[in-house]
């Protein structure tokens, strides 16, 4: 009987050994993976206990901080509504948004859970999350906001050399600090303050599409900048008549002159010469119709199918109307890529992660690049965009900055919601630009009159900040 008792013992010992192996797998090997499941309530509890990291602008000005109030932690946003769409918010009931959502783990310091933090926790000190340093510049953002005033619209400013976003503004905005209490009112507001117009608002580009068409036409080789066109003030394509602004006739013009004047009649002809496929291929190469990779959710806009596009459709596309939608972020990237010799840098907001003691854990100088236009073409388009701002009768003269050469393009986009949307895209200095900008004002009128002054102000502040403060961090 003793032998059988021993085998029974071995069987039970075997069972418990299986348990040991299983425990090693669940607790040690797969442990972190299982514990990081969003359903694990410990994560939410940990988030409440951790002193959330701060969010700083490029000059380390505080954009978001945490404070203790009534026994629990509340988020403070010293800049109020200025960075609302970019920073997002932290609410119990409505969750997180923006940078707060995207970089929540870093703000909680979760990936860097180390033994030292555990020890500090044991002694009752609330652990601190990591600080985020963003690429944005409060001065540029402030300038954009002031220039927009209380008009609805968006401003995107970035550094074409790196893709670092300097300003990202959407009006109307909201105060992220009072989201918890004011949510129903803010969400119901007919002016849609929760929508981030800069990254997700989709609009017809109007004439701000012309640089793209110009690039496509020059690439195809059907026209040159010296090519001459006649502008009688209107043109009829497949039964639809397209007119110029105020039915004004531009007479006999070269392509470059037509670009500076934003002559619709000429560009309809250029579009027809170039063909739908070539135009849309260039638009696609420049990132239209696709959501840009970014730190925040982005809209894709819309590019029509070239095969389904008739002559009439092509004529409309040529002047940035019809089934064509873009976001301000996409247009800022287009301007930046043209200025940056045809190389589009991936836009980004996060420049550094710092631990609570200020040690730098990660630095991002750029997040990738893509060649979208041959440099020769980009230079040609740039030359014509300078003409828009600098030639005597150019549409964008309101964007002139003393001592700096600015390249730009106006846009006035017809839409079914009322007066046209005003666009201006620009970069400066025109040669080797360090700032590019896209301005959109909803239903505000003519691009050259209302959007160009906003762009000028933003470029001015951005250039001044760069020459004064260097490129910290």
């Amino acid at each position: 009987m003793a032998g059988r008792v021993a085998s029974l013992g071995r069987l039970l010992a075997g069972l418990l050994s299986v348990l040991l192996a299983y425990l090693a797998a669940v607790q040690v090997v797969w442990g972190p993976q299982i514990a990081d499941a969003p359903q694990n309530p410990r994560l939410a509890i940990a988030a409440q206990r951790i002193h959330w990291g701060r969010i700083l602008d490029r000059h380390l000005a505080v954009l978001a901080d945490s404070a203790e109030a009534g026994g629990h932690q509340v988020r403070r946003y010293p800049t109020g509504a200025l960075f609302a769409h970019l920073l997002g918010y932290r609410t119990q009931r409505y969750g997180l948004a923006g940078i707060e959502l995207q970089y929540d783990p870093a703000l909680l310091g979760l990936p860097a859970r180390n033994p030292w933090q555990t020890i500090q926790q044991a002694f009752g000190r609330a652990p601190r999350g990591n600080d985020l340093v963003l690429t944005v510049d409060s001065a540029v953002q402030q300038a954009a906001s002031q220039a927009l005033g209380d008009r609805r619209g968006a401003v995107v400013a970035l550094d074409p050399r790196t893709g670092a976003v300097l300003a990202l503004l959407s009006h109307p905005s909201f105060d992220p600090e009072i989201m918890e209490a004011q949510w129903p009112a803010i969400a119901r507001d007919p002016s849609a303050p929760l929508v981030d117009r800069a990254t997700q608002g989709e609009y017809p580009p109007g004439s701000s599409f012309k640089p793209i068409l110009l690039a496509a036409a020059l690439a195809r080789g059907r026209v040159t900048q010296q090519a001459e066109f006649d502008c009688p003030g209107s043109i009829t394509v497949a039964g639809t008549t397209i007119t110029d602004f105020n039915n004004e006739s531009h007479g006999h013009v070269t392509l470059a002159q037509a670009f500076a004047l934003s002559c619709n009649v000429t560009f309809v002809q250029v579009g027809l010469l170039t063909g739908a496929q070539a135009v849309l291929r260039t638009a696609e190469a420049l990132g239209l119709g696709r959501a840009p990779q970014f730190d925040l959710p982005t809209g894709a806009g819309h590019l029509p199918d070239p095969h389904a596009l008739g002559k009439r459709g092509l004529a409309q596309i040529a002047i940035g109307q019809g089934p064509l939608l873009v976001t301000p972020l996409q247009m800022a990237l287009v301007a930046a890529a043209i200025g940056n010799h045809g190389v589009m840098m991936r836009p980004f907001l996060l420049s550094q992660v710092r631990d609570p003691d200020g040690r730098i854990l990660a630095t991002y100088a750029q997040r990738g690049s893509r060649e979208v236009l041959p440099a020769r073409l980009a230079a040609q388009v740039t030359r014509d965009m300078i003409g828009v701002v600098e030639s005597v009768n150019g549409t964008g003269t309101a964007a002139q900055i003393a001592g700096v050469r600015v390249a730009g393009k106006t846009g006035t986009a017809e839409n079914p919601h009322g007066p046209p949307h005003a666009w201006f895209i620009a970069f400066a200095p025109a040669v080797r630009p360090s700032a590019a900008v896209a301005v959109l004002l909803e239903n505000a009128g003519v691009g050259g009159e209302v959007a160009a002054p906003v762009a000028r102000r933003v470029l001015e502040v951005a250039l001044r900040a760069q020459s004064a403060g260097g490129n910290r961090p």
Partner: protein
Amino acid sequence: MTVDSLRLPSSHAARAALTLRTSERGLLLWAIALGVLGLAVVHLAVYRSEPWVPVLAGTMALGGFVIVHAALCASGSDADEIVLPIVAGLSSLSLVMIYRLRPEYLSRQSAWIALGLLALLATLGTLADLRWVRRYAYLSAAVGLALLVLTVTVGVERNGARQWLLLGGFTIEPGEIVKLLLVAFFAGVLTDTRGMLMLPGPRRWSTDLARVGPMLVVCLGALLLLVFQRDLGLALLYFGVFLAMLYVATGRPDYVLLGLAAFTLGAVLCYQLFPHVRVRIDVWLNPWADPTGRGYQILQGLYSLASGGVVGTGLGAGHPELMPAAHTDMIFPAIGEELGAAGTFCVVSLYLLLLGRIFRTAVRAGGDLDTLVGAGLAAALGLQTFIILAGSTRLIPLTGIPAPFLTYGGSAAVSNFLALALLLGISGRTGQRFHGAGAHHGGPGR
């Protein structure tokens, strides 16, 4: 009967009146120190502003182990010296975790442990002499079945299982006592019949059945009652113990195979017939299907276990209280969270050591009866430990039975200490057999 009657008459005169049991003393002090230290840590970390009274109660309960040790020394016992310290270690951990999870239950659990130790002391001299097992085998079975019938008819339901009896303000869990009674019954009957079951040569199934019949009837009756009680864990345990003892007594693999086939058939039938069995299995296979409802407990157990990592969060720093029934069914994952894999490995190792000592005792025991009771209790302890530890960690489907010496609960504490009394008795006789009259100290633990 007195404590002296533990020993065989032949060696009675030659025995020194005292054994030193130095290994037991040393290990016991470590085990108790661990518990007292743990209680103090939990108190300082979590309940700093509360009175120290529960910690004192826990310390006093653990002090009870020293008294048992002294009693064993005084009676000149040669019983295994490792078993008691292991049990003290598990009890220490149990008190620490219960204080951590449910501070209001610490005093009560301390009282249960004290009561269990008292029962152990009281029965060292009476129950431990196993002759009653043979004489009253059928009475044990009858009392056990009666208790189960009572539970089914007048018992109260808690957490979805009707496994409790109300007795003067206390709720008792008869299943734990019935476990001991069944081991006694099987051991008693098998001691008498194993000779005939093992006879060589051709035999008839009908005669075999007549010998095994009573045990089958009792076992199936208990299983049926338990299934209606929805106490599947206990059903599995009883059946496993029955098979194990049958195998040890007869060595007939056909019985074991037949039993396993019957078990498989029964399991499939239960799955088809009873919705609550189906739910248990489905929730085990895919807890994510209903993460906030039926899958909640098992998922929380997994998160708790996984959150512990290698060394755990430390006592009081984790969130095991998020698990339903953390101080009973889920105490093992709770240990996993706050003490990490280090803690769970220690617990499983303690159980392995304890099983090792008990099986060693059973292997070396003098008579059939001692061996069978020892093997039965060891099988019960090992199976029960595996069923609840593996169940609460999702290795197997979860069925709520107490983890021996660990889970909060009075009935389990008392019956586990009674089992310990039987084992110390067997081991004491064994020790004497091995060391003869000259041995002054050091049982099989040496």
